[in-house]
């Protein structure tokens, strides 16, 4: 069984909600402030509904994933966006053997 790498410290950030100007600027700005490196971004808009999936490397930052998650979720809620920050292992475990 392929185990995820012990040191894997990548997180998946998902943002869902009505499209508006500056969503990516807001997320990436926040991540830069906290020294979080963006590895990949994928974004689509279907019927004005915005979906973004971002893979980030949280190794360079001291900030706990939990704290990052809480901050983005709270700020996202104010903008009417549903933001989730989850360690990548949850997706690895569910979809990969």
């Amino acid at each position, binding site marked *: 069984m392929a185990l995820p790498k012990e040191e894997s410290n990548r997180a998946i950030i998902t943002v869902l909600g009505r499209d508006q100007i500056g969503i990516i600027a807001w997320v990436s700005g926040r991540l830069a402030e906290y020294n979080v490196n963006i590895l990949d971004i994928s974004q*689509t808009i279907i019927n004005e509904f915005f979906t973004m999936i971002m893979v980030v490397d949280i190794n360079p930052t001291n900030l706990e994933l*939990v704290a990052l998650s809480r901050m983005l979720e709270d700020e996202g809620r104010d903008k009417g966006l549903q933001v989730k920050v989850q*360690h990548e292992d949850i997706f690895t475990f569910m979809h990969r053997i």
Partner: protein
Amino acid sequence: MTMTLTFAREEIQQTISMIHDENLDIRTVTMGISLLDCVSEDINVLEQKIYDKIVKNAGKLVSVGEQMSARYGIPIINKRVSVTPIGIVAANMNSEKMVRIAKALDRAAREVGVNFIGGFSALVQKGFTIGDLALIEAIPQALSETEFICSSVNIGTTKAGINMDAVLKMGEVVLKCAQLTADKDGIAAAKLVVFCNAPEDNPFMAGSFHGVGEPECVINVGVSGPGVVAKVVKKYPEADFSELSNLIKQTAFKITRMGELIGRAASKELNVPFGIIDLSLAPTPAIGDSVAEILENMGLERCGTHGTTAALALLNDAVKKGGAMASSHVGGLSGAFIPVSEDAGMVKAVEVGALTLDKLEAMTCVCSVGLDMIALPGDVSAETISAIIADEAAIGMINKKTTAVRVIPAIGKKAGDRVEFGGLLGGAPVMAIHPFSSKMFVKRGGRIPAPIISLSN
């Protein structure tokens, strides 16, 4: 260096939707703690040692659980502790002292912040020790005067047969539990399970205890997810049974992987070995988190009608097949649970007259556990409860599976009235029982011999 998404968009969205829309969660992370080294002749010393050991081992359990939940973005509903059966640890104590130990366990549970602690238990399938008798006598008072204690008594196994003296006694104990907490709809009886073939590594309450073959300390995880299975079954109304089974297997695999992830991560964080995943489908009273709904989505107008046992058999088997592939170690109860009060679909089925006690008994032949969270009329006799226990134990003994009885006599109420336990325990209508007596049968005493299939050596 080029980086690409390592997951398909659909995979990420599926995981998120399973958690947020279909109630996928980790039902429990349960730490099993051995209390065998706490044994003492002095009740004060014993109480202190038990309290200290639980607080030392489980002190970080709740915070680590919350950390894991935030890290992976999946709810972990319950954090719990199970301990060595107290009938063994405190074998030299009388029933009064057993109640004191229950209160010490309760204080320890409160201190570490878990919502239940299991193991106020005795294993009496072949007979009683002095400690077992004291513990059983103490159960009604212990459960009615504590908040977090869960109790279980194993009265039969396939290897040992059924201890009918214990069955008779437990009928009285269940009734007494309900009487002592009549003002709370008999809640003490909802924290007491009577088992046949009890597993020693079950993380689910109320039947969880830390068996004597278990290590010093261990983490066991119980997953959930009836809502996820119900959704997938509903999505494919045309699927034939082979396809249906495969769909459930794939879903059970994904659900169980979540438990495997949390179990490994919590084990590492707490520096405690990872024991098993219990891959049960555990419903909650929440809408859309129902095992009955899965069966109805398979094409039954109401759970409990003809065909229900076959539907449940398919579901239970497919869950095990899918789940077994997803984990290194599967254990505990592992199968679909069919509690009544904890499952909105089961409650509805009882209310409309589709689901009866007799049908539930048949269903327990093909799924995990047994007659669970069922409210009985308040005038039920202790002997009738004993006879219900005997029937379930017989099913477990002959079929080499775990069966259990957790029934709650609703004092002052009759069939059709409603009881409310609150929270995850839910509420339910009182179910009708047979009016004919079983008294002469259960009072015979002695043991029902182990069946011929026990001679497997």
